[in-house]
């Protein structure tokens, strides 16, 4: 029996999906490799999965919460991070806990260098929801991203390609992909330009001269734009260019965060503290952190509470608490029990598959998840609220 599903496999958060079982396999319609992998991982049940572990040993939930609360109380410089699969409810509970214990909250990878203060705060940006882009943009320019891999249904949902969604744009639409790699997206492009990633984004202005008469255009970018040295400057240059082009055209940008929970967590952090990105609550009030070095080193983090994320390997010496659903079959029970060496791991219900909640799509549109399965595991929001009670700070 096909079941309506909202997919949290990537930040597109497609809500036009049905899942059906084909033998042992769960299939998604429309097809999406990323979505299918997400569903397979999150709907798989490992036998005898414990509710939680402490140093790899199975324990019950309450014991794990007590231990995690003790670690939080003892921490000098705690960090709350992750959020790849976190719902708005999870993020609200996480920032609440961080406020109480005086933690840093990061919605960006804490062990990697990053570009510092968000370019957005310096100049702003022009953006749009997916439907605006689908129904108005005659030109779609993808800057060094491969959404065919990272967001497999993006181009179709924006009405590009023969099997794309119907669009209200009259006439020709052009997909331009700028990349020096041979990517799946580049292969779909009407125009593929082999520009290096360090080329000045100002060069995009040439395209608007070449496509004279274009009224609406969208520039799609992602983590690659702001990565590495000069990242903030490149992002700033993009928004400056869009601002200038907006006198003659209606130009918007679309950022491609990878994970389904990232945009929403950043939104929650902003409304609860006033700042997005990385916020330090240690001094009793929010402070925006803009250092560019890896956070865990720069801030001498001694405890990291990871919320619904399994991507971040942290240096040795940092106590780790992880709240996450079991990523199977990619993982195995033994790997779960050691869980990247997490000092405390608590099994949570996977949002969208076995837990409800709200996600903010990459364009900010909020959607409520309707899980097709049930789980006895708690949500991360529940665990975080219990941790708040148990820390008693």
């Amino acid at each position: 029996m096909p079941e309506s599903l909202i997919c949290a496999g990537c930040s597109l958060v497609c809500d036009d999906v049905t899942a059906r079982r084909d033998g042992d396999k769960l299939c998604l319609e429309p097809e999406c490799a990323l979505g299918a992998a997400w569903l397979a991982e999150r709907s798989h049940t490992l036998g005898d999965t414990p509710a939680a572990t402490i140093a790899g040993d199975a324990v019950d939930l309450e014991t794990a919460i007590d231990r995690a609360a003790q670690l939080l109380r003892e921490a000098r410089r705690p960090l709350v991070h992750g959020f790849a699969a976190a719902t708005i409810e999870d993020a609200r509970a996480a920032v609440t806990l961080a406020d109480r214990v005086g933690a840093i909250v990061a919605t960006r990878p804490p062990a990697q260098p990053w570009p510092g203060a968000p370019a957005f705060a310096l100049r702003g940006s022009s953006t749009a929801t997916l439907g605006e882009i689908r129904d108005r943009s005659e030109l779609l320019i993808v800057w060094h991203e491969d959404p065919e891999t990272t967001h497999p249904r993006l181009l179709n949902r924006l009405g590009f390609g023969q099997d794309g969604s119907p669009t209200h744009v009259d006439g020709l639409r052009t997909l331009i992909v700028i990349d020096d790699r041979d990517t799946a997206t580049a292969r779909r492009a009407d125009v593929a330009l082999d520009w290096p990633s360090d080329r000045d984004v100002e060069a995009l202005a040439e395209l608007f001269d070449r496509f004279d008469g274009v009224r609406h255009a969208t520039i799609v970018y992602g983590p690659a734009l702001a990565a590495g040295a000069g990242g903030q400057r490149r992002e700033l240059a993009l928004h400056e260019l869009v601002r200038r082009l907006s006198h003659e055209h209606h130009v918007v940008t679309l950022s491609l965060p990878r994970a389904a929970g990232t945009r929403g967590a950043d939104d929650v952090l902003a409304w609860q503290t006033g700042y997005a990105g990385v916020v330090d609550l240690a001094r009793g009030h929010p402070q925006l952190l803009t250092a560019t070095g890896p956070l865990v080193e720069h801030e001498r983090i001694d405890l990291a509470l990871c919320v619904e994320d399994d991507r971040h390997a942290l240096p040795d010496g940092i106590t780790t608490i992880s709240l996450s659903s079991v990523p199977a079959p990619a993982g195995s029970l033994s790997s779960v029990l050691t869980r990247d060496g997490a000092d405390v791991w608590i099994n949570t219900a996977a949002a969208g598959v076995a837990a409800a909640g709200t996600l903010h799509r990459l364009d900010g549109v909020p959607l409520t998840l309707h899980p097709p399965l049930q789980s006895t595991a708690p949500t991360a929001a529940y665990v975080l609220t219990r941790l708040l009670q148990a820390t008693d700070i």
Partner: protein
Amino acid sequence: MTEIRISGGAVHDPANDVDGEIRDLCLKDGKVVSDVGPGARRIDARGMVVMPGGVDIHAHIAGPKANLARKLSPDTRRADPLERSDLVRSGTGGLVPSTFATGYRYSLLGYTTVIEAAAPPLAARHVLAELRDTPMIDKAFLILMGNNQVLFELIRESAGAVSPQLRDAVAWWLAATGGYGVKLVNPGGVEVFKQSNGDVDGIDAQVPGYGVTPRQVLEAIGGAVHELGLPHPVHVHANDLGVPGNAATTLQTMEALSGRQAHLAHLQFHAYGGRPGGLPRSRAPQLLDYLADHKELTADVGQVMFGDAMTMTADGHVSAVLRDLDGGKWVNHDTEVETGCGIVPFTYKAGNYVHALQWGIGLELFLLGSDPWQVMLSTDHPNGGSFLSYPKLIRLLMDRAFRDDQLGRANQQAIKRTALLDGLDREYTLNEIAIITRAAPARRLGLEHKGQLGIGADADVTIYHDRPDREEMFSTPRYVIKAGELVVEEGDLRRVDDGLLLSSSAPFDGDIDRVLEPLFADRYTVSFEHYPVDDPALREPATIVRATP
């Protein structure tokens, strides 16, 4: 529940014709009652002024627009931190405070109800989640419908008339989002901006591709809201905001809406004479004359206060104009099918002709008007200034000497073009302040139990020291009581209350789904099935105010 007797204060309750009468006020179970027991807590209010809790009919405090403004302005917030305590969450202030700070600061100012005046229906979940994180105040939001392509289709089909389908669609949208009322922003104009960076030309030009005019949108949706009997009438941000000469458009808008209930938002921004591209003049007197003859219309002022502001509006074209004027930060965000959004930080300067004229026009609207029930206090927070500037605005209205001093500091070329130098000696009374800050907004919102202190009213009460410096007086209430509990005492929060979500509901024919579903499939990237907000954690608890056709 606490029982409280507020004893010996001068009560200003204009909704019940009480003007400074010394009397006791009794509160029990969250309501005003006729008497309380001998064990009731007694608040000695002798020498103090007692009013209903403040009601802000038009502010921008929550949702994607406010949150983008927060992300845009870390610089304005660094110097304004809010420390966490055992009682309160930490946060930051600035022009767009974090959600918790917003709730606390409104409460510390004596306000107990606030309306978020412009929410994209598509973002209702986000708006609701932020409002759930905004404590202390009762709150509601108005949903944006003036540029909705689906509604354009229905209006075109009905040739601009109020069709049953349109009525049902409006009611459906309120039910789907948890909204309280309907807001029209630059009807048709936002769609034109998204099409061509331009604006619709007056209220009788067609919106390209849709065959509807702003006038039809005003009449059809305004009419639908009127016929549905929603507690708050259609709330209109008229076309041509900020454009010299726009008073003509505003008068046309009022004419189009006349005969049915309607509320005009931030009238100051729509009260300009002159010609587009030239210097504006004041047309406040003409608009006030029209209002005086049409009691079915009300307005809030949208007063400009000198200093920093954060312009944030669904009217993206206005923001693009400000972007080019200012050269500073700019955000644009287009929301499919429904609306747009523009944000530009802005500073109003006393020495600038246009800014001083805007300031003067706002004061004219307050001071030349004959009926305070029709013209209510707002700064269109944070567009004209922060809600924290309300006490200063109140002082400008109540204290002529202070006003004259401030007039002397503003651009005199501009002030000469207003009536403010014509011996305008009016000073608002406390009762008039109670009307424009509580009684009139509550009545206009259809909140029968708010903005008044009669038996059965909500026990939302603010008690002020009766100080000659009205700015000081209204900045720091002696006590604030919310839902019958003492929450603020002498500038300190004593208790944190979640506040209520207010929604409205009107019956509609369920068959409207069959009309809307194909239009949704054609226009939205969110499915019809997943559009309505059905999450109890967001929708409940809520106080539902039912429509009365």
